[in-house]
């Protein structure tokens, strides 16, 4: 381990003080929370991201229908009725941005969830069992890491979207769900998995490194001598202790996935209309850039702001949890 970035004596004293003052038993997360509270950028990012989520998942339900077209009212300027004006089809831009945010943020979160689930399990097993299993598993990760990620995701996405059509028809036939709703829901599903299936590699390496050092510690020996099974030791005692780096890495992964979603949608290989996502809005906006630049710039701003907030939040968490990730 290399030393954490040096601090001035004053900062160091302050930090120790705040920890000493905690009269109750102080946990890792409590300490982290206290440290995070001092990081104004991280707190601001948390606020920005929370507001964005509230707007997209809460406020959006009270907005206009994002699909309803009004061809007599194209490219309208902002007004009381259309807060940010309308787009090329006369659809309300404000509610399209919020609904687009739903999908973009969901893709980021769910793909990260898939990636974290695979990555933690894989890395933990590899590090815990060691030996030949470890060697094979890590060589596999090394190989997959050298493969151009976006290219495989593009092809995988093409394969999975066919399955999503079949799934959609099956759900409609079997359970009698609303057809339009089902189509819209299943259209997004492949993205979650296409991204998640390849995003776990770095995390698996990080978790493995953690497990390698954790499994030599006394508490693991204690748990083993109490007669717990190996799997129980791994999943109940070791994996929870890798949570810090996992949380940090996951937070930094979400903006990456949101960016990938936008890239795929921009190439016409991701989310399809009538669903909207920030990538689609930016793509559509680019067509009318010379006459109506706000169609590109407004979704672009919210998109970038969200990515900004998530990245700074991840950085803040890393400092607060005192994690040194392998990257950066």
């Amino acid at each position, binding site marked *: 381990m290399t030393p954490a*970035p040096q601090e001035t004596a004053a900062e160091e004293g302050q930090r120790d003080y705040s920890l000493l003052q905690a009269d109750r038993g102080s946990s890792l997360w409590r300490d982290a929370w206290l440290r995070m509270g001092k990081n104004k950028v991280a707190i601001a990012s948390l606020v920005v991201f929370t507001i964005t989520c509230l707007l997209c998942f809460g406020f959006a339900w009270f907005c206009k229908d994002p699909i309803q077209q009004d061809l007599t009212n194209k490219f309208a300027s902002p007004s009381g009725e259309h807060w940010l004006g309308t787009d090329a089809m006369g659809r309300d831009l404000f509610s399209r941005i919020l609904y687009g945010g739903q999908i973009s943020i969901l893709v980021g979160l769910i793909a990260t969830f898939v990636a974290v689930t695979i990555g933690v399990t894989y890395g933990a097993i590899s590090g815990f069992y060691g030996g030949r299993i470890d060697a094979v598993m890590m060589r596999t990760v090394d190989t997959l890491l*050298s493969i*151009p990620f976006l290219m495989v995701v593009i092809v*995988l996405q093409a394969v999975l979207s*066919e399955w999503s059509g079949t799934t959609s028809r099956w759900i409609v036939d079997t359970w009698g769900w609303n057809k339009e709703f089902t189509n819209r829901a299943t259209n997004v599903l492949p993205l979650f998995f296409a991204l998640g299936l390849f995003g776990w590699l770095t995390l698996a390496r990080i978790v493995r490194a953690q497990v390698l050092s954790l499994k030599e510690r006394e508490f693991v020996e204690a748990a083993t001598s109490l007669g717990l099974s190996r799997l129980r030791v791994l999943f109940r005692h070791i994996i929870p202790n890798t949570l810090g780096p996992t949380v940090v890495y996951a937070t930094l992964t979400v903006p990456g996935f949101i960016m990938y979603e936008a890239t795929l949608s921009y*190439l016409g290989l991701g989310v399809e209309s009538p669903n909207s996502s920030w990538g689609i809005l930016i*793509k559509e906006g*680019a067509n009318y850039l010379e006459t109506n630049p706000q169609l590109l710039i407004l979704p672009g701003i919210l*998109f970038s702001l969200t990515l900004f907030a998530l990245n700074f939040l991840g950085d803040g968490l890393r400092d607060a949890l005192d994690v040194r990730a392998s990257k*950066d």
Partner: protein
Amino acid sequence: MLRFIASRLLQGLFVLFALYTITFFLAKAMPGEPFTTEKNLSEESKAYQRALYGLDKPLLHQYLIYPKNIITEGSLAVSTSKGRPVKDIISQSFKVSVILGLSALGIAICIGVPIGVISAVRRNSWVDWGTMAIAMIGICVPAFTIGPLLQIFIAAKLSGIKVAGWGDPQDILLPAITLGLSTAAYLARLTRGGMLEILSQDYIRTAHAKGIPSSKVITRHALRGGILPSVAFIGPAFAALISGSFIVETIFQVPGMGQHFVNAVISRDEFLLLGVALFFGFLIVIMNLAADILTGILDPRVRITGNSSR
């Protein structure tokens, strides 16, 4: 050193084979058929076409014949959507992609590394804050937003720079900037991190104490170690530039390989898909190797061994 390179090349071959396997089976699993896009062909002529391209053979046969043909004949098969050898398509467009990728990388290094060094030296000052905030913008604003904005605010205003197109040397400028900006931002952050670590080391203090001018301490003593994380990043960065070039090529209408890849997926052209994927994979393997060798030269502490498990 030679043994290291040889073992890395072997590993690279393995990577390419894995890439081939994944792409091959994904391409087979893709819905739709290669010959459905154009006019409605009769079943007989479709069957004839399939036989012509060898697509009627058993799957395992197809899986093995493709690499065999690469090795024995150097042939990458024929594109089903364009009817031309994939090798010709690649050799026409790859120069464009490589020029674009390398100039983007060059721009990224020229912007990113100095910014990272400056903000590390001026740690916690407003210079540091400002440059790192700008770097974050570079990471968070996607190429497909920056690209169009550059088009209307620079290309449309300045004569001599075209909004889109490829041919004159100055046409490289805008696509390369768009492509290189996020890499520049990552490099700036990495260089800053690396420099901060080095600048707190004893030997830097010693150098300062001996009265060596600060600028020389930074460029001669600190930079060599501080740049290491960035050098290791260049391999993956080049891969990212290549993937990113799909977008940039679309925006600026650059006739590179990225477009062929996206078109191959859309028109279910598996031979073009495999050819482009393998060629990109090959470039990435070479760039990773180059980055590893460069790290070894810059940092004697890196003990070069065959397997690099960390």
